[in-house]
Structures are given as C-alpha cells and as structure tokens.
C-alpha cells in the first residue's frame, strides 16, 4: 500500500513520533494541570514541553498556544470566539468547510454578515478581492494559506498586512502549509489554526490554535481547567480559557515530537523532496490526452496536485487506484467553495505526498494512472 493521501493525515509517522507516543502512554498517564502528585506533575511537564515546542515553532508564547482536537476545532474556536459580538467577516473562496461552515452558520443566525473573497491564480487579483470587501465593521478575515484541494498558495502575508492596516483580526488556516513552510505569527497572523496530524506528523486528534493575544477569543466550550476551581466562570487566562476538559497529552507529545522531527530533518529539505515528487508526477502525466491537472502557471503551489482522468469520475479513479494499492483522496475534499471556484463539478483526485514517499512510488502511480486512462470504459 502506498499512501498519497497525506494532505488528510500523514502516514506513516516518523519513528521518533511513534516512540514518543509509546513513551507517553507508558509514562504520562496523569491528568495534566490538575493534580499535584508525581504522576500528574510529570504529565503536566510533558504537556508544557510540547506546548513550548509548538510555540517556538510558530513564534508564539507558550501560554498563547492552545491544543485542540484538530484544525476544524481550532477554526471554530477562532471564528466563533472572535465574532461573538457580531460584525462582518470575510473568507476566501478556497476555504475548507472547517472555516466556511462556522462562518456560514453565524451568518444564517444573523449574528454576522459574511463576504467571500474570490481567489485567482494571480496573487494581486486575490489581494484586491479582499481589499474591495473590507468595510468599517469588518472584524475578521479568514484565509487558508494553502488550498487543501490544489495546494494553491494564497498571499497570506499581504492579506495579513491588509488586515493590520485596517485593524482587522487575521485568522489563518495553516492545515496544508504548517510543517512545510516556515509560518510565524509575525507574518501578520493574529490567530493561526492548524492540524497536528498532517504536516506536523503528530497523531490524529491533534490540532493547534496560536494567538498573538491581540483579539480576545470567547470560549465556545466551558468546563474544568484545573485552575480557579471555586469560580463558576470560565477563567480568562490562556490557554485554560480555551482548553476545558482533560487534554490529549499523548497527542500533544506526538505533535512536539513531530515538530522536532521536522527540525532535525530540515523543513527546506522536506519541502524540496515533496515538491520534487509533485514535479515528477506532473511531468509524468504531461502531454497525456484525457488527463487534466489543476495547476495554473500564474499561481504558486504547496506540494499537492489535483487531477482527473477526464473519462472517469474522481471517486471511480480513486477506487481503481486503491485496487492497485494506491491511497488517494477523491471527491470534494470537504471544500465546497474551492471546488465551485475551480469549476470541478465532479470533484478531483488529490495527490499529496509526504517526506516518506519515494520517486519510485510516484513513477508507479503515474504508470497506473496512464493504464486507467486507457481502460476500455474510460
């Protein structure tokens, strides 16, 4: 089995991450931030170390680094938390449903007004889309750094600058970019939301919300935090205000180990490898009639490639590839807006390599895609 569905979740995980998970299960079985006994303190220390590692990686303060269930959880907290008092919100037309749905839900309740900024291959045109939609009551802009469908990179630094000039909170979705690009809060991001189980190589059930603290985030969930226990009100301090309930310590430890893996392997080396695999895949299919690759010369892309065999449905293609031992995600990738923007009514098949894929594996995939393309019913 060859996994090219790493944009959903990276697999396999680095050996160091698997070892960290095993060590966490063995040694960090207390309840972090709650008890004062040795097991609880040891567990708390492990959670803090993971928090500190993640904070350092993204240029945040440890206390402003919040562990979440996944990127969707982080985006919901950010969007609902920042927009709790209403106002106008802008999202891009390439957003994943994790950003689009909470924004639409708030708009449907008439709690906010919502605008969608159209994304173009050209960065300047995209930036202009955002600029034109800004109003006096615009409170937040939500934008993915890299599309989960095509990998298209959005001009997030410029959008951050635009937000800063207009006193708007910039919420960035880093799910497909973090771990591959050196993303920092200082890039103009007020709140960065990302997954722990994708480019950061942690286990599933992990995500991060990192904030510069400039825009308060009203909690969407209340509960036990291990602090201020006599108060019936949620603490206002971070990370406690956004981390109710027992934290996923094992998950957090693996995120820390994953980030350390990226550091030791080298982020540039990692990205270069994945880009090379994408190049090989695209070049392998180039000039083949009946195959569409969704890339535009005017745009820049993270190492993700969407394609279709024109005569087959995207799910059918993925199913046939699965029968041949390849794991690729097809359909709409939980990204209704992005597919509407691309005009891909039948969805696409997504090729998303990780650091563990090889050129040989990509050649095998190209060979099999070409075979499928030539099947009698295609």
């Amino acid at each position, binding site marked *: 089995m060859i996994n090219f569905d790493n944009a959903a979740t990276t697999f396999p995980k680095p050996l160091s991450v698997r070892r960290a998970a095993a060590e966490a299960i063995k040694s960090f079985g207390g309840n*972090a*931030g709650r*008890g*004062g006994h040795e097991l*609880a*303190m040891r567990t*708390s*220390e492990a959670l*803090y170390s993971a*928090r500190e590692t993640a904070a350092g990686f993204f240029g945040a303060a*440890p*206390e402003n680094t919040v562990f979440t269930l996944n990127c969707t959880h982080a985006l919901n907290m950010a969007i609902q938390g920042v927009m709790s008092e209403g106002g106008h919100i802008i999202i891009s037309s390439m957003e994943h449903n994790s950003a689009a749905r909470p924004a639409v839900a708030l708009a449907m309740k008439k709690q906010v007004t919502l605008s969608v900024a159209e994304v173009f291959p050209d960065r300047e045109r995209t930036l202009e889309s955002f600029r034109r939609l800004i109003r006096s009551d615009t409170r937040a802009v939500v934008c993915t750094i890299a599309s989960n469908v095509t990998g298209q990179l959005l001009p997030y630094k410029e959008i951050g600058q635009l937000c800063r000039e207009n006193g708007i909170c910039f919420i960035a979705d880093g799910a497909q970019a973090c771990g591959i690009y050196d993303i920092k809060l200082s890039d103009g991001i007020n709140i960065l939301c990302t997954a722990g189980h994708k480019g950061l190589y942690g286990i599933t059930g992990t995500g991060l919300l990192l904030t510069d603290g400039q825009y308060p985030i009203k909690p969407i969930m209340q509960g036990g*935090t*291990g*602090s*201020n*226990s*006599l*108060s019936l009100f949620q*603490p206002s*301090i971070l*990370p*406690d205000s956004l981390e109710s309930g027992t934290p996923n310590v094992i998950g957090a430890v693996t995120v820390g180990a994953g980030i350390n893996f990226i550091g030791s392997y080298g982020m540039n080396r990692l990205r270069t490898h994945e880009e090379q695999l994408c190049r090989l895949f695209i070049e392998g299919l180039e000039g083949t009639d009946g195959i569409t690759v969704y890339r535009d010369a005017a745009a820049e892309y993270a190492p993700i490639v969407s394609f279709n065999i024109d005569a087959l449905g995207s799910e059918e293609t993925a199913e046939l590839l699965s029968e041949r031992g390849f794991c690729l995600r097809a359909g709409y990738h939980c990204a209704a807006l992005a597919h509407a923007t691309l005009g891909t009514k039948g969805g696409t098949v997504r090729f998303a390599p990780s650091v563990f894929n090889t050129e040989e594996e990509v050649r095998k995939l190209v060979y099999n895609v070409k075979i499928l393309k030539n099947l009698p019913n295609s």
Partner: protein
Amino acid sequence: MPSYTYAVKAQRLLRARGYPCRIRRREKTSSKGCGFTVLINGSCDGAERLLTGYAVPYSVRGGGADDDKL
C-alpha cells in the same frame, strides 16, 4: 500562579537564572480556588522583576522561614 502553564513557565525562567524552585499544587492560590505555587528558596526580589518582565501573572504569598512563594 493561576495555572500550571504559567507555573512551569515561571519555573523555567527562574531556574535558568539560578533560582532553585519547585512547583506545588495548592487548593487556594487565590479566592477563586486551586492553582499552583512556585516555591523559591531565598529572596523573591529579582524573581518578581523577572516574572513581570516576561508578563507572567503572579502574586507573592508569605513563605516559611526560608521560603518565598510566588
């Protein structure tokens, strides 16, 4: 300290500057209930400046004969 996160942050800052200290859980670090205390052996004078400089929220509580508590 209002939370374990701040307690560990404080402990690491203090230890890095030569303050021997340890964290203990307390049921009443404030009127709001449980939290964590960083116990420092010796004077807290420099420690307070350090924590203030790093925006770590704290309150000073009376210690034992040789202990100051943050």
